[in-house]
């Protein structure tokens, strides 16, 4: 049987970057093929070429043995290739049926007569959706409004959308990034089912654990080239990580036991509203002590964003109190908190963390521009700022041509290093100031970063802890929470369900808590969660 999809010698060049360098890729019929690689390795470029979003500079593509030229997504869909993007392409106010029909409207038969006034045949479409949903175990209500669905359900809508368009080959771009471990496991079951019914799946990810859970074949890309393909049985995590990065990687975070000191941050019955004035943080009480890392685990959208914003002065607190080093900071401004010893690595580095159009130099000085030695009176002291920026760029290994390069032209990993450099260097200035232990709040500090940068940033966070900082780590990556934290608080629907010791916590236990199942109700874990 010819392979479902074959690409040979694909080369794609963008200005200044060779995104794909003679890449060969073969997807056999009925397999789940994991495509692994760091950000910027060229996975997305390759898939976008296969989906017709980009045209390759050279190379051939064949579908089911037939050489083809895919010039648009429309073309790809016509050849049975469907793609589920990492960021869903759904219209929230429309129903599931309407979303799925979009662009593929099935019309009532009167079409011919009434021309453009034809009625949409929602009922036929909804029936078809129910059928697909039964066939592949994708539980979705066709009449539900997409905006009301959970992220996991929206993802199922995306998959049905592809199946509705008769896709035989499915490309799933980082599908587990938004799921709880349990939801991810459900997705894997669905993927298995689809493969058994003859579909072929490309599964893009950077999480090593998942590859072993579901893939039949694993291909690894690095720096635009295909490094190689292996079977899961012959691979180990260490081998795959080395293939991805090009050198040996220390997967476990090297960290000694915590020596917690006095409480630095305390919240009591904190209540915060989200943008739509709904309660997002509902009575959160937590304590972070000097010299420890408290991890906040949880599926995205359970109030972590609002919690971090409230703690850093960016969002109004509507109830409860926040205490920083003994001072009430419930209604403190960001400036007061910076002065009080807060370092904040924000969740969205483009929205809050950086001014992308500014040079690195100005981004390094973003929070301290107003005080000596960076300025005297109103006059900025650029020589001093530049000396400091150059030093931090060196110490934090920011790969940039110069400190005058705009932050927007850096890769994600280097952007995050700029933020880390700024925040941690400010905290380091406070070392030894009595009664003002620094607090680091890091939200999703490694989101979207490559393995090398993650390793570096994790190292720095642990280092800050060891120097006596209190660290609040908020992350949707359970692996990150488990390997960095000393204690883990699980957040669900705005509340902390439980706080557990990181040494004894299991993936299973945390996953259940993340899904809102409290220990009293939950069945004891029947198997040990695979942490490695």
């Amino acid at each position, binding site marked *: 049987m010819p392979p479902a999809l074959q690409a040979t010698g694909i080369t794609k060049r963008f200005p200044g970057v060779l995104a794909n360098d003679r890449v060969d890729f073969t997807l056999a019929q009925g397999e789940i093929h994991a495509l692994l690689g760091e950000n910027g390795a060229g996975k997305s470029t390759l898939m976008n070429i296969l989906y017709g979003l980009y045209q390759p500079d050279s190379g051939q593509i064949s579908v089911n043995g037939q050489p083809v030229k895919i010039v648009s997504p429309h073309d790809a869909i016509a050849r049975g290739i469907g793609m589920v993007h990492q960021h869903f392409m759904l219209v929230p106010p429309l129903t599931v049926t309407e979303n799925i029909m979009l662009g593929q409207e099935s019309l009532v038969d009167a079409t011919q007569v009434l021309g453009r006034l034809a009625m949409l045949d929602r009922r036929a479409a909804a029936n078809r959706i129910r059928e697909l949903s039964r066939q592949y175990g994708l539980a979705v209500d066709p009449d539900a409004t997409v905006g009301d669905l959970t992220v996991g359900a929206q993802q199922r809508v995306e998959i049905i959308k592809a199946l509705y368009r008769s896709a035989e080959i499915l490309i799933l771009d980082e599908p587990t990034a938004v799921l709880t471990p349990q939801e991810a496991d459900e997705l894997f079951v669905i993927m298995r089912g689809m493969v058994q019914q003859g579909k072929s799946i490309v599964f893009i990810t950077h999480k090593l654990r998942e590859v072993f859970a579901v893939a039949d074949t694993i291909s690894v890309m690095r720096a635009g080239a295909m490094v190689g393909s292996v079977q899961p049985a012959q691979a180990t995590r260490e081998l795959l990580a080395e293939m991805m990065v090009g050198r040996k990687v220390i997967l476990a975070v090297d960290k000694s036991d915590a020596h917690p000191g006095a409480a630095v941050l305390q919240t009591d019955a904190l209540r915060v509203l989200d943008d739509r004035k709904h309660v997002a943080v509902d009575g959160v009480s937590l304590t972070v002590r000097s010299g420890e890392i408290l991890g906040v685990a949880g599926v995205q959208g359970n109030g972590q964003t609002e919690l971090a914003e409230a703690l850093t002065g960016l969002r109004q607190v509507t109830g409860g109190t926040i205490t920083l080093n003994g001072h009430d900071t419930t209604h403190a401004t960001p400036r007061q908190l910076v002065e009080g010893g807060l370092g904040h690595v924000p969740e969205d580095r483009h929205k809050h963390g950086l001014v992308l159009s500014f040079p690195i130099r100005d981004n390094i000085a973003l929070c301290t521009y107003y005080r000596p030695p960076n300025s005297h009176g109103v006059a900025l002291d650029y020589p001093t700022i530049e000396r400091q920026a150059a030093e931090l760029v060196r110490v934090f*290994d920011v790969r*940039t041509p*110069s400190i005058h390069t705009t932050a927007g*032209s850096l*890769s994600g990993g280097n952007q995050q290093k700029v933020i880390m450099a700024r925040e941690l260097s400010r905290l380091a200035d406070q070392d030894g100031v009595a009664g003002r232990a620094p607090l680091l709040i890091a939200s999703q500090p490694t989101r979207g970063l490559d393995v090398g940068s993650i390793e570096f940033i994790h190292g720095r966070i642990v280092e800050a802890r060891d120097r006596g900082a209190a660290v609040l780590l908020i992350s949707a990556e359970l692996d990150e929470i488990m390997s960095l934290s000393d204690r883990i608080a699980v957040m669900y629907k705005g509340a902390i369900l439980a706080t557990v010791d990181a040494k004894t916590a299991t993936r299973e236990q945390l996953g259940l808590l993340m899904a809102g199942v409290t220990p009293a109700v939950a069945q004891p874990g029947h198997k040990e969660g695979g942490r490695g």
Partner: protein
Amino acid sequence: MANSDKTATPGNRAPRSSGQGRAFSGKRIADLLGMPLLALATAFVLGAVVIFLTSGRLETVGEAYWGLLRGAFLKERGFSESLVAAIPYIFLSLGLALGFKTGLFNIGVEGQFYMGAIAAAWAGQAIQGLPTLIHLPLVLLIGAAGGAIWAGIPGYLKAKTGAHEVISTMMMNYVAFRLTEFLISGPLRAQSGSSTIQTPRISPGAELWALWDIPNRLADPLNALAVGLGLGFLAWMIARASRRKTKDEGPKNVDGNSSFVIRHSSILIAIVVAALAFIALPPLTRLWWPFTDQYDRLHLGLVLAVLAAVGVWWLLWKTTIGFELRTVGANPNAARYAGMSITRNVVLGMALSGALAGLAGTVEVVGVSICRCLPLFFSSGYGFDSIAIALLGRNNPFGILASSFLFGAMRNGADLMELSSGVSKYIISLIQALVLLFVAAPAVVRWLYRIKGGARADEAPLTRGWGG
């Protein structure tokens, strides 16, 4: 860590250097100038096409542009009249650029221009007999305040209620037009026999001197003192700036044990310059002075405009105030994260923008108007042209000096163009509109000349739209 790391993800292949290799390479300058120049050239070519199509004669194109050139530069006082027209343009488009940098589209500079003019016209005549040294700075300050308050109101409304400044400043324009009309024809109307409706003539001490008039003005020792103090202050600023530069390059002996003269060198230089100017300038200008034409309207406002450009540049790029304004303009979320007050900076940005617009009106009243007053039918239109000028100058104070001069020249040359070729002078508005179009939509120019490279990151926040 990984210095043996050879994984070339896009960001990390460039070699690292610390600080050198700074911006102003030839390529960067070409990059900065290229787009505006291409926009300009394209607009003139299209203008030529329109002239040809409407006149039907190819020669008319040549006659029109030759007339424009003669009117703007070659005819008697052409060049200096172009400069006179450029002065309000400079202030206004500096105001717009400052707004743009703060993320604000202050479309109401025209109204602020009027409010500055009426405030200055009032302050100039309200007190008589004050020396220039006191009265002129006072009038400039009050004129700037007029514009600042008029722009500060929409700024406050935006910061507090989210009212978009494009709408509110545009509405404030109409209020300003009618309010100045009312004031000129009512409370502030000159009572003298003149039949024209205008404000009273301002006191001579509030006038901004024409260049030819300087030797006569310097005959008054108080005026000589004013000039001396002004030049002394300038010298002090320059000395301080250059001293800081040398200090950075080599940390020589600038600490405690250096001599009194070195430590206070800037202030000493300033005193020497001021004294020299006070003593020597009056007799020297009597002996020789390049500006002798009494009908030449070029005035000291030109110097003020250039100083304003330097001042805006310094404020925006060398001070914490400008750092905050630019951060709020480029990314308000990051500004909040960094502890800056959005409210304060939006109000401040609007007020400073309006102050510059108000100065433009002030300078027109105290430096240009023949009656040294504000007449009722005082048509300007400067404010709207300035949007194009600021964009053509890429919101850079020095770019604005150049583009203001260009627009001043076009405004000034248009009359002779119409006279000598019969082509309507409104063709100039068409060309200016095309310039604005091409500068605002650089993609069109790129496509036209097949220039590669998409929109760059620093190009984006030129104007943030309605959502902003």
